[in-house]
């Protein structure tokens, strides 16, 4: 089967994730979209690994998963804390950075 199709799927998933991050307000959904983008990248890595016939891409995918796991821990903690103080999970409500 043509490896290029995997790359199309990966690009599609990445685009869906990016659009979700930019357009959705709910922090949990934004978070899920980020995961989607990371996994799209993982799919690309693995595909390139297959195309090139070596293991570099697969090793890279493991790194990505580790980073994603850490990010989930920190990110969810932040979201929960913000929700506790603001009673809202909307990312637009947490806009104090401009001051």
């Amino acid at each position, binding site marked *: 089967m043509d490896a290029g199709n995997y790359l199309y799927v990966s690009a599609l998933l990445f685009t869906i994730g*990016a659009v979700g*991050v*930019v*357009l959705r*307000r709910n922090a949990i959904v*934004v978070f899920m979209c980020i995961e989607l983008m990371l996994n799209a990248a993982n799919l690309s890595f693995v595909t390139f690994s297959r195309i090139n016939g070596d293991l570099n891409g697969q090793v890279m995918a493991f790194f990505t998963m580790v980073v994603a796991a850490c990010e989930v821990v920190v990110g969810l903690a932040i979201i929960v804390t913000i929700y506790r103080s603001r009673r809202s999970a909307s*990312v*637009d409500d*947490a*806009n*104090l*950075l*401009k*001051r």
Partner: protein
Amino acid sequence: MTTSNSLVYLIALPLTGAALLLIGGGRTNKWGHLLATALSASSFGVGLYQLAQMLGRTNDARPVSQKLFEWIHVTNFNVDAGLLLDQLSICFVLLITGVGTLIHIYSISYMSHDHDRRRFFAYLNLFIAAMLLLVLGDSYLNLYVGWEGVGLASYLLIGFWNQKPAYATASKKAFVMNRVGDMGLSFAIMIAFATMGTVSFSGVADQAQHTSKAALTAMGIMLLVAAAGKSAQFPLQAWLGDAMAGPTPVSALIHAATMVTAGVYLITRSNFIFDAAPTAQLLVVIVGAITLMFGALIGTAKDDIKKALAASTMSQIGYMILAAGLGPVGYAFAIMHLLTHGFFKAGMFLGAGSVMHGMNDEVNMRKYGALRKFMPITFATFGLGYLAILGVPPFAGFYSKDMIIESAFNAGGTKGIILGSVTLLGAGITAFYMTRVMILTFTGTKRWDEEAHPHESPWLMWLPMGILAIGSVASGYLLSRGNALVNWLHPLFIQHVKHEELLKPIVVSGLALTMVALGVAIAFNKYARQDVANVAPEKVSRITKFVRQDLMQDRFNEAVFMRPGQALTATLVATDELVIDGAVRGVGSIALGSGSALRGVQNGFVRSYAALILIGAVALVAAIWVVVA
């Protein structure tokens, strides 16, 4: 040349006095004036000692020098701080210290009510020291130090009562106008250094004949500018009238007898330059002639007794400058008139001070009148000075002024006739305005303010006046007896070239006396036989109005120098603000503007940041793609 170790004391004594009184401050208040007077007198003593030494030597061995220290020593340019006392400078030394001491004595009484008398005496001593350095310096550079010193002392003393803004302005005006002349002197020194490689008098005198005429002429003109600034000569004359803001002893010492004659000294001292540069010499004569008429005309319209005398000083120095510009025939006569003028003008200024002292510091002559009975000594001394300035024989001015008129006539050709007529006419106008001063002040009816109680001044004041009056009577005769002064100064100047006499001396004297009699008669007719108003009449001819405004000298300076100067300054300030500051501020506002424009991006919404990152990443990838493909 003979050397001496005692020349430095001439300067050091009064300089010590100035330093002690200024540094000592209030602690010296009680005895400061006595110390200053004693130091000035001892400086006069040293001068007399030097004169006695000098008389004991032959003509060629008379100049004395003293090297103080090595001042500037750069490869081929060496200037030592050195003093030179020769036949010319001894005249000045004795005039400065002699008249200076008398004026110190006078000031003890005149300034006794001033709480700042000590500071006044400190400045007087400073002036004496600076003026002595001016006439004793053996190079133009040493002279320059003294030249600036007297300018400073003059500034400090004119503005002595600087709590009055007008007086402070007058001192600033004198200082600024003097600076113009000082620039001339510094240019002259630079020319001397550039073309001759030396600035000492003897060096320049030796080099003068090997130097191009153009350089000598330029140097001569620059020296003339310097002399004009210091001696209140046309076109830098406007400061002298305002300088009368200073206490009267200052006017007598600095603005009549000594400092304002420094220009005459400079030209006489630089005779080797002017003799070799006829164009510059002609300019000197022209400046002298213009100023002598200018001052005389201003003198006719002044109601302020000190300003009338100041105008007269300007005119008399015009005579000296004119004589100095006539070349070797005139130098000695310039110095002779300078010395006699030092006596009679200082005496008259002190007389004016005495009158003011008795009249509550009133200076307007229209509010004087009939003071002869109340101030007999002042009247007598002032009267002797008056006869001297008129040139009535056998008083001092007769000898000195007639010599100048005679030399002017004998200058040859049309030039001689023009100069002779100007000096004659000047003598007539002098007689007119001085008679006017005499009549308005001492005779006629009382026109006093109610609170005036005229009285004779104390002996400390009339004693110096009396001594100066004796000088006004006798100095002319003594200096010209057997051509004493001419022979004394003879070795310093190029030998006389005998001119053909246009008019015989007796004819010149006759003409001069006729002019004087005419001037006196007109003044007598106008002021003694009619009542004088105690305010200046308003309905007067245009000419009178013109003369009253000092022949528009201030307006001229304002229009020609001040306004364009201000415009130039304003332009430069505007350029500074627009171009230089503009560039600096421009950089700032560009940063500020771009900052506030970009601030909108930082809106605090995470999603917009994410969108920007996305756009950036896409743009980056697109760019790489374009480049690689």
